[in-house]
């Protein structure tokens, strides 16, 4: 078998279109997933047992089922309840919901790792639960929360390849389309891998940059 360099050249613009879609979906999912995950994380620290319990059940479900199945569930379940979304948004929602579950757990664990004396001291001067969370615990948990969160967001980008199964024309799907016509899986999958690798390397660099800027005390 010969490596088809001609096809590689022709494929790059097509794959670039797919990559743009991947970036768009991931950017949206990163924003929504982080916000939702942060909120769920806070909810998991609520004083209300029912709220904590609900978040725990959600996190458990997200961690205990494959992302692929979660994607199918969002894609096929939403129309059933009368919500008809294009694949694009189904993809964004599925990735956001998935990342949110993991991020909620990261936030809960991060805040939980802070020494009990901190919140006791805050209680002793009359601070209330929400104040303790916002002024004492969350600022201190940043160092514990940010690195695993950026990690999770990188995982999200890798997971976006699975959206090809619901025909979102992202990077992987774009490559599969080329393979279907030209049957050159090795060339194309190698190219796809390089595209992902570069994207994720840039993200990893960004997250290291961010982590270096976290306050120390």
């Amino acid at each position, binding site marked *: 078998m010969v490596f088809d360099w001609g096809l590689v050249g022709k494929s790059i613009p097509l794959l670039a279109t797919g990559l743009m879609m991947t970036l768009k979906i991931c950017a949206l999912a990163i924003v929504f997933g982080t916000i939702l995950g942060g909120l769920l994380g806070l909810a998991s620290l609520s004083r209300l047992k029912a709220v904590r319990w609900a978040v725990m059940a959600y996190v458990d479900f997200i961690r205990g089922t494959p992302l692929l199945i979660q994607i199918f569930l969002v894609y096929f379940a939403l129309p059933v309840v009368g919500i008809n979304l294009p694949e694009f948004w189904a993809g964004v929602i599925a990735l956001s919901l998935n990342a949110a579950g993991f991020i909620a757990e990261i936030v809960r664990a991060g805040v939980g790792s802070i020494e009990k004396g901190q919140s006791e*001291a805050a209680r002793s001067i009359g601070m209330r639960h929400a104040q303790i969370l916002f002024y004492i615990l969350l600022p201190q948990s940043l160092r514990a929360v940010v690195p695993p969160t950026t990690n999770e967001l990188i995982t999200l980008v890798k997971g976006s390849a699975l959206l090809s199964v619901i025909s979102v024309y992202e990077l992987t799907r774009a490559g599969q389309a080329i393979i279907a016509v030209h049957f050159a899986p090795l060339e194309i999958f190698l190219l796809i891998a390089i595209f992902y690798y570069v994207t994720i390397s840039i993200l990893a660099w960004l997250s290291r940059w961010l982590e270096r800027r976290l306050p120390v005390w």
Partner: protein
Amino acid sequence: MGDVAMKESAVIAAEGLTKAYGGRTVLAGVSIAIEEGETVVIIGPSGSGKTTFLRCLNYLETPDAGTVRLRGVPVGADRHGRLLPEAEIAKQRSRIGFVFQRFNLFAHLTAEDNVAIGPRRVLGLSIEEAHRRAREELARVHLEDHAGKRPSQLSGGQQQRVAIARALAMRPEIILFDEPTSALDPELVGEVLDVMRELALGGMTLAAVTHEMRFARAAADRVLFMDAGLVVEEGTPNEIFDAPREERTRKFLAHLHE
């Protein structure tokens, strides 16, 4: 009769406090009333319930039974023993200072911010007022030159003094100290005890769990000896240290002097 009269005037009064952890009784019915301006020192062997008792006074720990009154008003629970709403308990706690064995300064904040955050967020003072008060209180514990430092840049003795300033900034009606010097290197104990003595002499009401006999003799109006979840004996420092009536007190003091 005298008892009742005393409780009327007390800053804080506990009655029949009990607490058990997993079936193990830690407080077996503790009653005590602390008067305005009084300095009470609590001593007793490890595990006798001293920390638990102090923590019940400001409801950091919820007692199983018994009541705490702050100037006659029940703390933590209403007259029927129902827990008060969080906001209400928090407000009561803000009137009772607490100084921890391990300082528990907010690790991410400077000394000044540690002291200012209570007046700012709990008492609702303006930023300027809260920080003016914080600098005042830091000066009172002789740390005006360290206002910008974080806890990790301070010695243990300095951290504990910031913690005292943090409590003072709330203008509490009483301050509770739980072994405030026992986590300190010996050479740093004096500076913390000096501040406590100044507070006591300045008329502040305080209750301190401490085994620093020199402090107790110099500053305490009353010493309580606790053992097995009960106040076994109480009296003036001279009475307790020089002529203890109870065998358990004698044993403990002998052990302490070894």
